[in-house]
């Protein structure tokens, strides 16, 4: 439900309520505000990054109702009433209550073990896209992983170890390609 509340920066602000990482968050936002700026600047969830202004790089990928979206291409008001999962909330989705608060999601763990990140700026978006990819296709081939991550750009890794990370998380990494101990 949206109601006009205040005037700010020349535009009528709108009250929205999102479920973000399992918590209800209610805020007034300008209608033009992008979801990514709402998450970062209003809710303090800065793990979701902005790498471009044309919906090309995928650094801002989050899950909306379980599916990956580029949060620079969604208005905050469009997310009203929806469930958002950001990188900050990902680990909790895979963790039993009372679990180790420092335990990561299996996809995060796979990126760590396969050296799937270097500078780490594209990483939150890449991880969220990979989680969404496996939700749709739990046992992808290498080619399917590559195609599935086409909307997320990385400049550091050449994708080699990102692809291995996703295959490892899916249990699809050939034994011969596992990193020797």
């Amino acid at each position, binding site marked *: 439900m949206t109601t006009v509340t205040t005037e700010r*920066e*020349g535009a009528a602000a709108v009250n929205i309520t999102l479920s973000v990482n399992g918590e209800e968050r209610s805020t007034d936002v*300008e209608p*033009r*505000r992008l979801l990514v*700026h709402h998450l*970062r600047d209003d809710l*303090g*969830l*800065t*793990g*979701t*990054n*902005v*790498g*471009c*202004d*044309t919906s*090309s*790089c995928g*650094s801002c990928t989050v899950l909306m109702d379980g599916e990956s979206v580029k949060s620079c291409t969604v208005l905050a008001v469009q997310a009203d009433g929806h469930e958002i999962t*950001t*990188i*900050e909330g*990902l*680990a909790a989705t895979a963790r039993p209550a009372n679990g180790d608060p*420092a335990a*990561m999601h299996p996809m*995060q763990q796979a*990126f*760590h*073990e396969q*050296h799937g*990140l*270097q*500078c*780490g*700026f*594209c*990483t*939150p978006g890449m991880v969220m896209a990979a989680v969404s990819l496996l939700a749709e296709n739990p046992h992808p081939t*290498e080619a399917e992983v*590559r*195609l599935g*991550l*086409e909307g*997320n*750009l*990385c*400049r*550091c*890794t*050449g*994708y*080699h*170890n*990102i*692809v291995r990370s996703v295959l490892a998380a899916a249990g699809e990494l050939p034994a011969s390609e596992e*990193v*020797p101990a």
Partner: protein
Amino acid sequence: MTATDVAREAPSARGVGARMLRKEDARLLTGEARFVDDLSIPGALWLGMVRCPYAHARIGNVDASAALAIPGVRHVFTGADLRDGWAAAMPCAWPVTEDMKAADHWPVAVDKACYVGDIVAVVVADSRYAAVDGVDAVAVDYDPLEAVVDLEDAAADRVVIHDGLGTNKSYTWALVPDPDAVERAFADAAHVISERYLQQRLIPMAIEPRGVAAVPGVYGGDLTVYSATQIPHILKIMIAATCGVPESKVRVIAPSVGGGFGSKLNVYAEELIAVALARRLGAPTRWTESRSENAVATIQGRGQIQDIELAADADGKVTAVRVKLLADMGAYMQLVTPGIPLLGAFLYGGVYDIPAYSFECTGVFTTKTPTDAYRGAGRPEATYAIERAMEALAQKVGVDSAEIRRRNYIPADRFPYDASSGLTFDSGNYEPTLDRALELVEHDARRAEQQRRRDAGDSKHLGIGISTYVEMCGLAPSRVLASLNYAAGGWESATVRVLPTGTVQVVSGTTPHGQGHETCWSQIVADKLGIDPDGVEVLHSDTAVSPLGMDTYGSRSLPVGGVAVGMATDQVLDKARRIAAHQLECAEDDLELVDGELRVKGTPTKAMTLQAVAFEAFSAHNLPDGMEPNLVGEVTYDPPNFVFPFGTHVAVVEVDEETGGVELVDYAAVDDCGVQVNPMIVEGQLHGGIVQGAAQALWEEAMYDDDGLLRNPTLTDYGVPSAAEVPSIRLDHTVTPSPTNPLGVKGIGEAGTIVSTPTVVNAIVDALAPLGITDVAMPATPERVWSLIREAREGQA
């Protein structure tokens, strides 16, 4: 004597040589890491840059009234408003010749703008969105002038960009150690190769755009600057020099930085503007670059016309190389713009034993974004030219790509090798990398398949491309930099402290932004002290914590900074031995280091852990007479030479005659960077570098039109590859330690990019050789390749 070790050693679990997982990962994988734009800075004012939309224009009236009427917009400043506040123009630290010409470069242009993206006014606003609104509302009158886009046109001075200079030619720098020898070699040559190659401009496109925040202490005068930079230490000095702030008041912090590739190795207008306005307004200022801004406002790479000639005897043994470059500086000199071609100047002979050498470069101004360091910086250009020219020579002599290289490699028994360009290559053994790389791609089977397709008239042509490279990195011996007229040194500093609880604290002057220094430096220290790397903390990238540093670029961090860390650890161990010997009442030579304990040989019960020694050093109750308390080692290491990693890469491509499309179907790389501290990280650097270099060959180009407008300033139309465009990469390595540093290491950050570009182009040309095609311009887009094939077919008909 150096040896090439192809066999694998079993590394200790987590010391040097181990594939230790990275310490940096957890914060980056969970969103805990803080990049500049993530910082919460109460009261910060947002800056927006009004940029010139023309390549070359006089700036007329700037009307800010509409902008100032927008709620949240506080101020608009023009170049003239800020001009008197600068203590100096923007810095160029590398005036390559005494008579180099360069115009003053002000952070906000005054009177005239010289490229699309040049800043003409600054909006100050309460919010991110208001700053953007304000920029859109500033109305500037421009009087457009003619653009200067083409390098030869620039050199002809048809339109002179900087009136005061009288020419667009900034400098000519030459390296011709023995001109007569070069003349003789060409006069006596059985074969002469003469080729022209174009190095298109590239946009670095680190996925994190730039950003800066300046937080002033209004009363105390302190200034803290957060910047997405590779060089907080150099930036601090330059802020002091250009903004007139005492260096003692400036602290620069590079928080998490999302990739650089050289593009954050600079002192940028926005950093200086943020500082100047924070001081002027007495409030924090911040700015985050948009991607479209990044394409024009962050430095670009490459941009050269290369003329290369080889003289060779009848067997294809090269006797001389002669190179002339025209290098695009862009509109102004940034931090090291003029020096970039010089970083390649010594390497146009590649891995070959060539007795005569001639290099000359002229730097010219154009009305385009300034160029500067981009991954490899000068060395990819050099490697491209020699490795493409060797292909031309192979064809002329009538031997294959591997054979022409084998005939010319510097023999393994000639190292250290004094190259005719004047460098001394530290160590090398090139041929085993070629053998292994050919084996990895199953070269003979690929050749057979290529022939089968040719015989069958298959429209999908297979091509195999080979390149062998050597590069000079580990920037740099300070005296060599002096000889090249570079303004600073090339050393690196390290401090290693054992804290009272036994934790080891490393302070490094390097500035990692993805390279994993926290992990690697921990491995080096842990290996020497016999402790767990988790017991080592690594501090960096903050000038208040690490006051002395030369930062991260030029594949220098390990061979200079990592070596310094190792040497500082040796000092710690030395002092620990003296303390332990004193307390255990034995001679220092009687002690051995086992599992982090100093034990008396033969009496293992008489021992002190490093932790116990550290506490004794801290309490200082019972130290040898005259010894200072605390267990600290401190080193500033100036390397005696560059280091010279090398290797051979082989690419296999499929070129579709119907579409002109080129698919990279296989890629193998065998590299030698000496001792590997962490092979997992070495591989990661190579994977990324190889794809970045292949992208120059196949997809990427900053496309300027005749009016000097950048036609592809976004990631939708600038071809940064995705995972779908590239294959997995096969890697192997040899180990030929560098004899010039105690760790035996060489840099590996740029090698992949340096060699993969010619490797891929050689493969495309190999695929199309039966059509009589001998060269293809970069990037080899489907349109270009299709047209080339079409012309060749028409020529054959």
